[in-house]
């Protein structure tokens, strides 16, 4: 690797971080906007999430008297864990910068770490809401994570690897034949995982503070100011991570396989389009479903797990997969 390549590589890596960090609030804004539109409301402007973040960052954090260092440190660790996952995923070019060091299972682990820190912080202050929220969130995590792993295996089975960039490169090389029923079914399962992991309807309602139903909001009720900004931003980043993974695997075409300028720009633009499309679809989906009772979520995750397993069956036993 020449020094020039190294510099370009580092720049591209930074570019990935920049894209994820800067784009994620916009995606939240899009979802809100789509939901508002389909509910015949005007809705807040697309850039509202950025303004909220700016407002929160400008404010000081307040801590409960009973809070320990955990409360102060958790948002940072949680956010950092999410950022660490970025270079393991394919965004607008291949191979992923840290692809050699870890596969999608690492991503699952990092997401779990982030979830764990948030739950820990929620318990730290000792408020009732925090305890409630963290139990609920861990329950959802316990349901979603095994299914996430199954989906990774289902996706990886045809390519023979659980590494995101290998799967994507395999998809690009196969062309249209890549879109087998097995892949589509696994992706449907992943869509359910995505909803659960990012706290969208019908798993969690991000727009409610109703004590009976809120999950994520209950956990972060104690936070304010800069810390809250970090948590909100982290939530957006997590959504971007999973949505990015979803679109990259489902529609891998357009991701740059070389470091040419045209290919990179094209990959970037297409990534934007894919992510905005996913956000639009999620917004549409959310207006059509109601929040489910917590214990019915097990039904949802069972369905997702069954679909993922079905996809593996199709790939291995029938060869219907590519």
């Amino acid at each position, binding site marked *: 690797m020449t020094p020039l390549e190294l510099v370009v590589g580092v720049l591209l890596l930074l570019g990935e971080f920049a894209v994820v960090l800067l784009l994620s609030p916009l995606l939240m804004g899009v979802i809100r906007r789509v939901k508002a539109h389909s509910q015949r409301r005007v809705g807040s402007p697309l850039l509202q999430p950025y303004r909220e973040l700016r407002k929160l960052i400008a404010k000081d954090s307040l801590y409960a008297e009973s809070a320990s260092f955990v409360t102060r440190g958790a948002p940072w660790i949680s956010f950092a864990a999410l950022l660490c996952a970025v270079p393991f995923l394919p965004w607008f070019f291949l191979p992923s910068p840290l692809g050699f060091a870890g596969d999608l299972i690492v991503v699952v682990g990092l997401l779990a770490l982030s979830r764990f820190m948030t739950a820990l912080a929620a318990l730290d202050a000792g408020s009732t809401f925090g305890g409630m929220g963290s139990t609920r969130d861990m329950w959802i995590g316990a349901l979603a994570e095994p299914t996430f792993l199954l989906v990774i295996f289902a996706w990886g089975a045809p390519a023979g690897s659980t590494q995101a960039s290998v799967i994507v490169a395999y998809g690009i090389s196969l062309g249209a034949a890549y879109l087998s029923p097995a892949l589509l079914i696994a992706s449907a399962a992943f869509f359910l995982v995505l909803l659960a992991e990012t706290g969208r309807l019908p798993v969690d309602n991000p727009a409610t503070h109703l004590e009976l139903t809120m999950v994520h909001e209950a956990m972060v009720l104690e936070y304010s100011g800069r810390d809250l900004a970090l948590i909100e931003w982290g939530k957006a980043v997590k959504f971007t991570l999973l949505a990015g993974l979803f679109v990259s695997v489902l529609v891998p075409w357009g991701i740059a396989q070389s470091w040419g300028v045209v290919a990179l720009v094209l990959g970037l633009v297409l990534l934007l389009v894919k992510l905005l499309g996913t956000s639009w679809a999620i917004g549409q989906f959310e207006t059509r479903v109601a929040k489910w009772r917590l214990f019915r979520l097990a039904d949802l995750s069972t*369905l997702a797990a069954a679909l993922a397993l079905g996809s593996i069956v199709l790939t291995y036993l029938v060869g219907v997969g590519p």
Partner: protein
Amino acid sequence: MALELCAAVVLLAAWLSLVHRRLEAQIYLYATQSAAIAGIAFLVSILYATPLLAVTGGLIVGLNVVVIPWLLRRILRDLRIPPEINMLVSVRMSALAGLGCLLLSVAVIGPLTPLAEIPAAGLLPIAVTVVLIGLFTTATRRKAFSQVLGILGMENGVFLAGIALTYGLGLLLELGIAANLFVLAIVSRLFLHRMKDTFDTVDADVLRSLEG
């Protein structure tokens, strides 16, 4: 690729209708599934130059996508059937049953020697899965209405198999099969009405007096 997409839609629709509790949504899923099957028929007719199959696709669109869902919605409305279904088997078990159906169908179809002459035969395991899921629905749902939906789902699976294997059986046979399906829908509607008049419910639970 579009073929695979349609096949995935067919399978997903069957699987989702297995876990969905609302009858209205199940009718919608049935219509979606039928549309995907019609799509497969059109695609196969183009890809393998079998123009008659387009007629089949048209038949499916007319009957399974438009007429039968309309009829089912009317039944739902006229009989004031409660919108949520009663399950003998929980949603969770149903979702897993879908997986079981897939495994069974793979076990059944797997040993067949692949036929090079029929490229679309790869759709066969999915068709069998849809048939089995329909069978499971028919067997485990308490509402007579759901049993009809299960049977319609089974028919859809067989249609898919027919399209994948035969590229169309000939117009006369297809018209006959379609006519049978239509009459089946009408006859079921008649019986559901009678059931409602007689028992004031369409739960198949009341049908328990004949034993032994």
